[in-house]
């Protein structure tokens, strides 16, 4: 079976993007700042992908957002809400379970 490695990688990264985003929002950040940080960590995503995610997380109450007027031009800063911290912990636990289960299967085959 031939697989498009790039496509699989994009899908995997997209799947963990909410968790990674919540982890990077320990302190308030604006959109581009978040994109830059994600790119530094190997998640090269575009605004068209991140913005809908931020909006969805905000509407779910996971993130709180506020316009910061002190900059030269107002910027919208996103940060974790108390519910967001719980969601992050829950997602992190889920991620570890999936990762461990995957590792176990892959190692069985490789060993």
């Amino acid at each position, binding site marked *: 079976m031939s697989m498009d490695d790039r496509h699989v990688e994009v899908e995997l990264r997209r799947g963990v993007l909410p968790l990674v985003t919540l982890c990077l929002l320990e302190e308030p950040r604006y959109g581009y700042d978040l994109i830059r940080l994600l790119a530094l960590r190997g998640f090269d995503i575009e*605004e*068209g*992908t991140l*913005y809908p995610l931020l909006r969805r997380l905000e509407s779910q109450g996971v993130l709180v957002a506020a316009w910061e007027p002190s900059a030269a*031009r107002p910027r919208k800063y996103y940060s974790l809400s108390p519910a967001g911290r719980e969601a992050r912990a829950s997602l992190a636990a889920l991620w570890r379970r999936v990762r461990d289960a995957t590792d176990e299967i892959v190692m069985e085959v490789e060993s």
Partner: protein
Amino acid sequence: MSLTSPQARAYLERLRDLLPASEAERVVAEVESLIHERVEAMSPGIPAAQAEERALARLGVPEALIDTLAEQPISVGVSARRSFARWWCVLAACHLLLSVALTMAGATRPAVPGLLGPLAMGSVVATLTSALGVLLLDAGLLFAWFALSGGWGRPGRLGAPDLPRGWSRGEAWRTLVLLALLAVILHPLRDRIFAVRSDGRSVPFLANDLVGLLPWLDAVLALVALRCAVVLAGRGASALAHGLDLLAGALGLYLLVRAATASSVVDLPREVLGGPTAEVLNNVLTRVLLTVALAMALFLCVGLVRRALRLKQALGR
């Protein structure tokens, strides 16, 4: 600092156009902020327009962005639903207008069997039911079109029709000049322009029924002039300007229907042209004017729907 390139402004305008009014301003402000942040992070040597273009490319096309903003997984995209709703308004308005025109013309048989015919006039219930039938028929036809050519999405060639935008000051001035010209033609010069000349005398040929509608036409022109004044006062895209435009359009449509149903629109003088010639010319001119009136009514009807949607959007801001 606002966005400089026409592409960026058009992008935001398209987003505003596609989104529900309650969310439009918020999303547009956030997306504009994202574009600014990306542009600021680029090398200062890149021209602003080029930088904005690159930032837009990272956002994707407006329709795709709108669809990804939906809260729940959806089988029909938001842009497809809005496109459907807008086309339905336009299609149903034109269909109803044609049906009303056929009814007024006294047609007793459908013009296109199963698709277009006069409204039932037996009772109020019958009229309402046949009007409802028109709306449902159009919804069904449009649904079939979407399903066949676009799957669950929007057919490629059937984007949501653009809504009229605000007016520029230059456009407002040009319209005022045109209105003044029309007013001069309709009043001081009317009896000279719309007249038959013979043996040095000039005989007006517009029928009294048509001349009697001039105060209504004046009211339409006054409303358009008022809209221009609102634009010149610096409120180009305000709800007031759109409201005045909508009112002018509605009054114009009423005026056209009155003109099309008048007992006579032209009255060429028989004593000047001779009986048979005057009769033939009367018939020809009447038919030409009625055709023009119907075509204008169609345009106005579509325009009215677009204006009403724009007003709704402006009121929602």
